[in-house]
């Protein structure tokens, strides 16, 4: 039976983890590779790096981070942030990423999703959607970290990128991100039920019940969280045990 996935996500800026990872004694809590190794050992099902490096010149540092991670961790790695061109994808995949997440570039140019999927295969193209509930039952795509509205319907957009060849959707409830109040389940369910591809629920996780809800009520097949893991509020093992207890198929030991 296919297991539901728990994915810790690390924000990386100029090759360093933003805010650090404090759940375990790391020699260097700011080194993404050290954090990746710790999560690998802790039983994470996949790992996600989000590159928030502001300048183009510093982007090269991410390739090195990805390369060193792929050398040490034999688990799937998704990298997102600033992916705008076919060459960005190629460089990340060649460095050792398994999947690449496209965010605003998919909004500004739909054809990019199609080109990417045709070039590298749907299996490695994740479209990252930042959604907000703008009115009850109305979900809109936002860009620029949730600051810029696009007027695009999130469910329609998810259908569209699926048809263009995306292999997976990473859906962030922007109205919940950082609040610890849980996913926007109506948004998650609306998108997950509208598409044939897997949906990763993200944004707002504060308790272990939120992870359960993302799968059971949001119909996602994976849940992504950052701070609850990085700050040591919960371990990956605790998250998985809690989800398994709720009747969700989980990969318990590697």
């Amino acid at each position: 039976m296919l297991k539901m996935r728990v994915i810790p996500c690390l924000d990386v800026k100029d090759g360093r983890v933003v805010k650090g990872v404090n759940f375990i004694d790391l020699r260097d809590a700011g080194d993404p590779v050290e954090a990746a190794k710790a999560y690998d050992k802790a039983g994470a099902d996949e790992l996600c790096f989000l590159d928030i490096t502001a300048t183009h010149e510093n982007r090269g540092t991410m390739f090195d981070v990805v390369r060193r991670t792929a050398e040490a961790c034999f688990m799937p790695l998704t990298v997102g942030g600033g992916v705008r061109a076919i060459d960005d994808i190629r460089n990340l995949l060649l460095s050792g990423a398994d999947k690449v997440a496209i965010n605003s570039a998919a909004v500004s140019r739909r054809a990019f999703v199609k080109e990417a999927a045709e070039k590298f295969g749907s299996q490695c193209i994740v479209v990252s959607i930042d959604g907000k509930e703008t009115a009850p039952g109305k979900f809109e795509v936002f860009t620029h970290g949730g600051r810029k509205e696009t007027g695009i319907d999130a469910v329609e957009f998810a259908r569209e990128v699926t048809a263009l060849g995306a292999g997976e959707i990473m859906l962030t409830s922007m109205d919940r991100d950082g609040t610890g109040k849980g996913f926007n389940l109506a948004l998650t369910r609306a998108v997950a039920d509208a598409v044939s591809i897997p949906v990763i629920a993200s944004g707002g996780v504060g308790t272990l019940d939120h992870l359960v809800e993302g799968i059971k009520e949001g119909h996602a097949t994976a849940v992504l969280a950052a701070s609850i893991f990085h700050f040591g509020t919960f371990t990956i093992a605790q998250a998985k045990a809690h989800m398994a207890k709720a009747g969700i198929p989980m990969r318990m030991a590697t």
Partner: protein
Amino acid sequence: MGKTVIIDYGSGNLHSAHKAFERAAAEAKLKEQIIVSAKPEVVAEADRIVLPGVGAFKDCRGGLMALDGMEEAMRAAVISKGRPFLGICVGMQLMATRGLEHETTKGLGWIAGDVKPIAPKDPALKIPHMGWNTITPTGQHALLDGIKTGDTGLNAYFVHSYHVECTLPEDVVATADYGGPVTAMIAYENMVGTQFHPEKSQALGLALIANFLRWKP
């Protein structure tokens, strides 16, 4: 010292495959040299051959054919000399007779079968089949030696929308359950293929790779 070559034909995550094979060899204390190469003469001389592959069947087939003399070198080593061969994901699918993804493309034709879309009985199941799943052996195979399989066994990492439907059921070594059986592993004599990614499958993957490096078919 044996030499294992991972074929570089522009497809797949060669870096992580390379590192996973090195790690598996080191952990199993096998003195195996792991090399990544696009040169037919290196493949022809190798003791073991690995064909990775991600993406679409047709693109991978095209990438392999674009390497002048590679297919002949693979045939010489695998078919004529009987060297152990491992195909991974699309690298496994290429072993089949035909790929039916988008259009019909001829495969290597080493194991009789077609590459077809997976069709889970439950329409709510997502495609691709993406994530960790257990595998159930349908026969015995040296590559699964010592690996705990079945419902309570170790998990393997899958990401695919197509699988090999073998003409001969005995060529299927293991299946995964995803709204019905999905072909997870196929084998014939000195050739074996895994639909899942051993290089991404942690404990199960490293054990299977070590078994491949020890395999004397």
